């Protein structure tokens, strides 16, 4: 298998998976590089059967390693680690798309931030399925292949992820209401 071709074909998917795996927006580019460094190193050992599943597991391990390092940094009490991030981590377009109004833009940003906060509270497995299905547009079958699990497992995780997400959202809204009361 040719590394360059694999990179061309799969980079965008890997970049999406990093988000589903909970990688902060600011770190995804570096993490994508780490993933493909590992891919290049291990390509000759790959059996070629499930490219998506293989790449996903590499991405998952890199995100895990990254989280552990951040945990060390936290224990040190030092460097400021990213807050919630800016949502999808989109690239800044050369020419910014017109926004309806500053207020609408602010509200959209707040909604993205709230979404990221809520999904950060989900377990890794549920968060991944929720984002891959609800946001990134993968089908259940595609997710089953990426995660290397049966299709029914995908639907079960999605069911639980939605329930957890709604519970967290209800709690967040209740907190907001409580904060508004005098």
């Amino acid at each position, binding site marked *: 298998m040719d590394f360059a071709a694999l990179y061309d074909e799969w980079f*965008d998917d890997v970049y999406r998976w990093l988000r589903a795996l909970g990688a902060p927006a600011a770190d995804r580019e570096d993490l994508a590089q780490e993933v493909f460094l590992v891919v290049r190193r291990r390509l000759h050992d790959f059996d070629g059967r499930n490219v998506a599943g293989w790449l996903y597991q590499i991405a998952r391990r890199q995100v895990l390693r990254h989280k*552990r390092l951040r945990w060390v*940094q936290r224990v040190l009490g030092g460097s400021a680690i990213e807050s919630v991030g800016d949502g999808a981590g989109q690239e800044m377009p050369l020419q910014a798309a017109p926004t309806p109004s500053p207020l609408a833009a602010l509200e959209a940003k707040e909604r993205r931030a709230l979404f990221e906060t809520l999904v950060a509270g989900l377990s890794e497995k549920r968060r991944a399925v929720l984002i891959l299905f609800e946001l990134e547009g993968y089908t259940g079958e595609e997710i089953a292949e990426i995660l290397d699990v049966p299709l029914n497992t995908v639907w079960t995780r999605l069911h639980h992820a939605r329930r957890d997400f709604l519970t967290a959202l209800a709690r967040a809204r209740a907190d907001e209401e409580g904060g508004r009361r005098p």
Partner: protein
Amino acid sequence: MRRFVEQAFSERSLEADAAELMRAAGPTPDAPAVKQRVRERLVQAPARRRPHFVLALASALAALALGTAAAATVGARWWRAAHDTTGPAARPAPPPLPAPRLAPVDHRVDFPVPVPAEEARLPAEVPAAARPAPAPPPAIARAASHARPARPVGPYADAETGLLFESTRALRRDRDPVRAGALLDEYFRRYPHGTVSEEALAVAIEAAVARNDPRAPTFARRYLARYPNGQFRNAAERALGGLSK
């Protein structure tokens, strides 16, 4: 199954609110500029990854800081034990606290510093000054005060690592192994296969030993079963050995 954003929910329902958030978050757009930048960096990168200096330095600092804290904890225990004339003298000493593996404060112990093996290449020697022998309380207090985070910790990377960090802080900074144990129980309930579960189990062993919890060997055995070659294996084995005596 239909996606949330494709469904029609009644207005002001929680589901409609959730769908709105998902719409706002949106899919990750293709990032051709990122793809190109990463491609160029890959071309320049050597085939074998070199140890990252910054990461190695962070690991070393973490080990040193936590090592000092662990030494302070061990020293404080020693001091209390030496001066505790009212307590049960025959009480067996608890097994040693885990201490930073990378900063050999006490050769018997291992602290669960979550340093990936690849990043655990440190300067060959830790300065002698960083290896305090059992010291009298004033020195211990100074060491502990330097080792603690100087300011409150802000938002965590995510809820899972936040919970683990809170439990570690309860154990090490607040010296409250009971609270640490409760937080860790919550961690294992919420994240039975979490991304930092290896570290959580290592901290759980330490907390259980500190509060003389009979579950300590259970945690240790669970650690060894899950991570037979884990980086905190020695600590788990020592916990088992210490408790079996």
